[in-house]
């Protein structure tokens, strides 16, 4: 897990995306008159076949909500989720068929596994739902467990989750997803709750699954190092919106959005100049600022660099807009990043 993934392996550039969103919005209506929380506020995202996409951003920016929406667990307020180009149909029967091909892995395997079900039952459940109990169920469970790295699988069949270590539990959860042979796995912070020592192993597992079975994945994380290690592409999310996308090299080695830069600057191994601790209150999806949603905390605006580039007014009043999901191009939602580089002194600003 040292070198960044080779972007050429991501075959998405050619074919149609497997799983995508278009203009996705999800608002949670506020209780008794409070404003609705726009947890996801316009996201276009594409995951190609065999591609690993990292979705990064601070806690509370809407990553989990987006992940759940990708599985049809939350219905969008506006916009759509599509699978192989076809919009999701939220009828029980259609959802069931869809969920055979896209699987979810959650952050905390202790909560994600039913404490009263044995490992065998936990892993077999997905298959029983879709094909019923068959004579070869045992073989499938054993295979899923070994693919998830639990060998010999038979030794785990009758264990309960509380008898396993955190890493083993997460492998059981992954095996439960694998038994359905999905095309995409949506993993919501799959290693965040694990010991540092086993994180690498679980990430290796995801990479190997992609290499061996062409499994695509959206890996949600707030850990940029993790994104760098396993993803082909990265999407940086801030307050319900993707603000920068591109290959991991583009986004993490040459970040253009001030938010991405600030995230990277606080990494210990960062070479990107001084640390930028983000000022201002933490983002609140019930009160999304007008203009650029990052402008109240933006170091570029605060330092006057945006003013120098002549975009400060636009930062405060004009929404830089949504990014298209298309994987081929690096994109950034920032007026300053788009401003012509060497500023002519007499440039008078917009309009």
């Amino acid at each position, binding site marked *: 897990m040292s070198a960044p993934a080779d972007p050429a392996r991501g075959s998405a550039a050619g074919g149609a995306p497997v799983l995508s969103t278009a203009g996705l919005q999800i608002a949670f209506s506020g209780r008794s008159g409070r404003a609705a929380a726009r947890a996801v506020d316009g996201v276009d995202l594409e995951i190609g076949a065999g591609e690993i996409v990292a979705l990064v951003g601070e806690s509370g920016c809407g990553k989990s909500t987006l992940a*759940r929406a990708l599985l049809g667990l939350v219905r969008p307020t506006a916009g759509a989720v599509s699978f192989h180009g076809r919009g999701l149909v939220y009828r029980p029967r259609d959802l069931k068929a869809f969920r055979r091909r896209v699987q979810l892995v959650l952050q905390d395997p202790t*909560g994600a596994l*039913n*404490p009263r079900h044995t490992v065998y039952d936990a892993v077999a459940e997905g298959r029983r739902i*879709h094909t019923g109990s068959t004579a070869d169920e045992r073989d499938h469970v054993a295979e899923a467990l070994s693919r998830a*790295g639990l060998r010999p699988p038979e030794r785990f069949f009758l264990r309960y989750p509380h*008898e396993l270590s955190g890493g083993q539990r997460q492998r059981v959860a992954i095996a439960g997803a694998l038994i359905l042979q999905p095309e995409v796995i949506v993993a919501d912070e799959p290693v965040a709750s694990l010991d540092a020592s*086993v994180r690498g*192993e679980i990430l290796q597992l995801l990479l190997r699954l992609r290499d061996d079975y062409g499994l695509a994945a959206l890996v949600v994380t707030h850990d940029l190092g993790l994104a760098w290690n396993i993803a082909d592409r990265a999407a940086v999310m801030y307050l319900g919106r993707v603000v920068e996308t591109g290959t991991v090299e583009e986004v993490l080695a040459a970040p253009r959005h001030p938010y991405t830069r600030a995230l990277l600057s606080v990494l210990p191994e960062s070479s990107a100049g001084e640390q930028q601790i983000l000022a201002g209150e933490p983002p609140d999806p019930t009160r999304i600022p007008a203009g650029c949603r990052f402008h109240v905390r933006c170091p570029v605006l605060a330092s006057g660099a945006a003013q120098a580039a002549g975009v400060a007014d636009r930062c405060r009043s004009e929404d830089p807009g949504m990014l298209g999901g298309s994987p081929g191009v690096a994109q950034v939602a920032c007026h300053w990043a788009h401003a012509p580089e060497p500023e002519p002194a007499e440039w008078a600003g917009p309009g």
Partner: protein
Amino acid sequence: MDTPSGAGRPAAGPTARRGRPGLHPAVRYLGGRVLTAVVSLLAVMVTSFFLFRVLPGDPVAALTQGRSVSVDQLEAMRRDFGLDQPLPQQFVDYCLGMMTLDFGMSYQYRVPVSELIAERLGPTLLLAGTGTVIAAVLGLVLGTRSGWRRGSLMDRVDTGIALTLWSVPSFWLGLLLIVLLASGAGLFPTSGMSSPGVEGTFAVALDVAHHMVLPVATMVAVVYAQYMMIMRSSVLDEMGADYLTTARAKGLRDAVVLRRHAVPNALLPTVTLIFLNLGRVVSGVILIETVFAWPGLGSLFYSGLRVPDLPIVQALFVVFAGSVIIMNLLADLVYPLLDPRVRT
């Protein structure tokens, strides 16, 4: 939680967990619970003796009320009941009797209390058992529904009805039912457990069932709310659990997610509570038995209190409190069997 063998390699099993040398953890757990129960029982026995002796009222005076009796006769009665002895001597006799399950003679019925209890136990268990089973099933079903659809109209209506009934005194509800349905509409008998002159197994069973309807209904109405509210909150606790999301994401229908995942986990605390309640149920039927003149332990206790018939009330107090203690113990012992997480 982590097993000592580390990640990637399965641990040797739950028994490999280190305990204190000597005793197996399960034995220590069991022993501790049993010891606690025994100590509680002893405390109850001691309390029972003194509690009813500070009650106002002289049994001998009460039993001879309205009759002209000589001082000699009164003295003879006192001697008969052992009330002429000094208190410490009475206490020692009482304790020795309790140890051998000899509760003494009833002052008013002049038969051994243990015989009275044996005779009255069946009707009480029938009433309390039937009522508890119905209340528990009703509470579990309604509580599950309410929790799963929290905030819905159905939840609010069901919860409202349950809490209203819960806050009604059982004797008042019982009297109301008697007035309306028994003496009023004549649908049910007003009192007792059987009618005279009924013969044949089936006819007797039917007759008893007929007598049971109102007392059981009263009991169920007053107690099902607690089972319902606990099941409701257990289901609510489980609702946010990630494993439900996992199950849904695998394609399981909502109703099956509830049945297969949420309910079994929510049942655990509820079942424990039902166990804890079983002991209290027996004493809880005292009022109902009295209102419906049901020939059980409750009405026996009531008739004993009026005198006070010390051997009866002492013994029943120990029986009632003892059943709570024993059910607590059972709940402690059953819980680990139901929950794999605390299985040792």
